[in-house]
């Protein structure tokens, strides 16, 4: 019995859906060039971060959030096909199922991240090797709650409703996280955003300034969302055995 074989085929079939792959890559890229292109070399007010870097990370957060949540869209489609019930009558353990879904989400996220890094370099982003690595590590850590959110949505919603739910949800999280403009250091939006995982994804751009890009608060917010959403995802999966 090799649960990794199962994961491998899940990754393979996700990569084979080229239309899906291209569409999820192309929009963050277009948006990046449109938003960051005109002022790539200017600095974000009051910081030493260029707009090219700020928006590279901002749109990477947008692209990777979508990538993680897209596993939810695939789950919803599989449920409608009755495949979820077919899997329940195999010895596949929930852990192995979640692992396959989370890794598929991360694979998509890494592809999206790589595409934006290339675009960022094209617009003049320049970081030390260690900074690229640190940035990537922070992004991957900040995406954990979205992996759980994707699985939750996939088991609660139908293919019809998950499109608008994801589109709206991601736009809102991106806006409140600072993908489109910096939220400053005061005001209602700033205080609200600090409790959202998407805010900390965007804050990963602070690696360029040296020092710790995330304060303890950032790690706690990510950890809290992860703990809550993982529980919800587990419940949603366990309850979801009926005919759809």
């Amino acid at each position, binding site marked *: *019995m090799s*649960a990794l*074989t199962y994961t491998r085929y899940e990754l393979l079939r996700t990569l084979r859906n080229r239309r899906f792959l291209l569409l999820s890559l192309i929009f963050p890229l277009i948006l990046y060039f449109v938003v960051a292109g005109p002022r790539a070399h200017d600095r974000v007010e009051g910081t030493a971060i260029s707009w090219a870097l700020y928006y590279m990370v901002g749109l990477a957060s947008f692209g990777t959030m979508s990538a993680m949540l897209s596993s939810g869209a695939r789950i919803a489609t599989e449920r409608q096909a009755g495949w979820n019930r*077919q899997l329940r*009558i*195999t*010895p596949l353990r929930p852990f192995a199922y979640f692992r396959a879904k989370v890794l598929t989400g991360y694979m998509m996220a890494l592809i999206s991240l790589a595409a934006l890094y290339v675009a960022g370099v094209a617009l003049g982003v320049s970081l030390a090797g260690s900074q690229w690595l640190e940035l990537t590590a922070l992004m991957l850590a900040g995406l954990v709650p979205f992996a759980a959110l994707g699985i939750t949505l996939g088991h609660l919603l139908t293919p019809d409703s998950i499109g608008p739910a994801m589109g709206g949800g991601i736009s809102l999280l991106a806006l409140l996280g600072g993908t489109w403009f910096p939220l400053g250091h005061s005001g209602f939006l700033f205080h609200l955003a600090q409790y959202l995982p998407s805010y900390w994804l965007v804050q990963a751009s602070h690696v360029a300034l040296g020092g710790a890009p995330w304060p303890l608060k950032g790690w706690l917010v990510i950890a809290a969302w992860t703990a809550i959403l993982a529980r919800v995802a587990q419940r949603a999966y366990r309850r979801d*055995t009926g005919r759809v």
Partner: protein
Amino acid sequence: MSGGPVPGAGGTGVELRELRKSFAGPDGPVRAVRGVEVSIAAGETVALLGPNGAGKSTTIDMLLGLLDPDGGTVSVFGRPPREAVAAGAVGAMLQSGALIRDLSVRELIAMMASLYPAPLAVEEVLELTGASEFAAQRTQKLSGGQTQRVRFAVAMVSDPSLLVLDEPTVAMDVESRHAFWSTMRRFAARGRTIVFATHYLEEADAYADRAVLMAHGRIVADGPTNEIKAMVASRTIRATLPAVGEAELLALAGVSAAERRGETVALVCSDSDAAIRALLAAHPEARDIEIAAAGLEQAFLALTGDAAAAEQADPPSLQAPR
């Protein structure tokens, strides 16, 4: 096929005890399954026969551990169904399922095989289920009949001790259906336990040792398929015949049930030719005579028709008076 261990052939297979399940409906709870009691020995092939809405699929969902019963117990080879599933002992073809896309048929079967402790070889399953010739095709490009064969392969890949099929041939063409049942026969011959739901009497008759008849969430008859067939393939004689008691009518040759409604009587017959001769010989005054073949639906109605019979917990006896 490589023969895996068959848990206790002839021993305990599937036990359903006092199984009950209700769902919330628009007019209060719908009692989908109400007190189902079945024992299936290991190695038996049993047809779960009944019209749509009889509770077959709900019973199967509980048997597979997909649905928790409101009351009663399920045991599969002496274990709760989820344990039997986790051990890889159960294969199933559920009703109206599709396949996941972007894998070839061969890859999909290999993916499913990897989940089991002792699966059959992928090529063997493809051969067995008639899926070899399109094994390299992507699953989203298959015809309806091909999809059914692949779903059958998914159910078979674990070499299961218990195979459960919920209306397996509904979307199949004639050729696929024939191939499907001949594979099932070979599989059954290896001592595997098979439970299949169908609303085709012919399928139950041709492929099962035993048929369990369900209607309105209950078992209305349970016995060897030939007896069930005789019972279900009955005809009904209706006639206007006042002043003859039900007991007297039931005693006529070929009559298995008699019922009076006002001046009319209805006789459910195991042999309508013998019954009509006997009826006219004994009661020449009978008039307005109609003889109708009872379809499966009518047979179920005849078996479950009056409220008193429907409320009885025991299924009616299979032994027709002779």
